[in-house]
């Protein structure tokens, strides 16, 4: 009668459904579900226009209009399996783990990641999800480029990634 633990990982090009992710980890054996939703938010970058006099510094804003995601898809699956295994070793009570991550174009305000973990008691899944998000950012081969209304774009780097410029910092 024991329900086998499920690990569900999906890379999706369409809108992520929080309800679908929650349903994937639901179980009548689990009293708690922790969910994390990562979204793009608007950053207003202020910069000085080169060549202007300091007294009249021209401040311009550029706005993130969306994100472009790509992934090494096969390796995402193997890294997330490894991650789930490490979570279960540290929190043996965890039942199901589900992670949906967007690929391709993601508009500002849309979720790029939805993760849910279920466990009988809330402390385990709450601790596990914090660790899981950090580990995913450190190890899942997924990249995002911020695209601005100025037509510019820039590849982002997670501080959790050990070989990033910000590597080793905690976010």
């Amino acid at each position: 009668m024991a329900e086998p633990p499920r690990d569900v990982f999906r890379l999706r090009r369409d809108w992520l459904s929080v309800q679908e992710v929650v349903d994937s980890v639901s179980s009548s054996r689990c009293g708690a579900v922790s969910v994390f939703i990562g979204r793009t938010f608007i950053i207003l970058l202020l910069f000085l226009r080169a060549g202007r006099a300091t007294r009249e510094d021209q401040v311009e804003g550029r706005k993130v209009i969306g994100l472009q995601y790509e992934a090494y898809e096969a390796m995402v699956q193997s890294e997330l399996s490894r991650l789930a295994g490490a979570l279960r070793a540290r929190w043996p009570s965890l039942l199901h783990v589900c992670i949906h991550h967007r690929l391709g174009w993601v508009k500002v305000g849309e979720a790029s990641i939805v993760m849910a973990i279920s466990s009988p008691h809330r402390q385990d899944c709450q601790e596990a999800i914090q660790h899981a998000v950090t580990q995913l950012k450190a190890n899942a081969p997924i990249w995002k480029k911020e695209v601005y209304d100025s037509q510019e774009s820039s590849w982002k780097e997670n501080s959790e990634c050990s070989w990033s410029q910000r590597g080793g910092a905690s976010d």
Partner: protein
Amino acid sequence: GTTDGTVTVLYFARSAELTGLREEELVAVPTPISSAQVAKLRRSDQVAARRADGDSSCFCRLVALQGRVVLAVRRQYVTIGNQQLSLQDGDEVAVVPPLSGG
């Protein structure tokens, strides 16, 4: 020795933009080989370098990554250095810029 068949090199994000490639196939790759040498094997750069003036530096394009890059060999991360790897026919090697998932 060298590998009998091909090794596939995959590029992502900034490494794909810098090389202009998503993927290339390498033949007769020396093995064993250090991960640092693997990082220099990219055919596109070799071709570009030969075409220019025989410059033996193959790291010309990815230099913009300023060392902030690792490899994934058979889907396992490998830092670029002296570590010896045995590559085999069909192996997949990815050039992995800093991650930004989540």
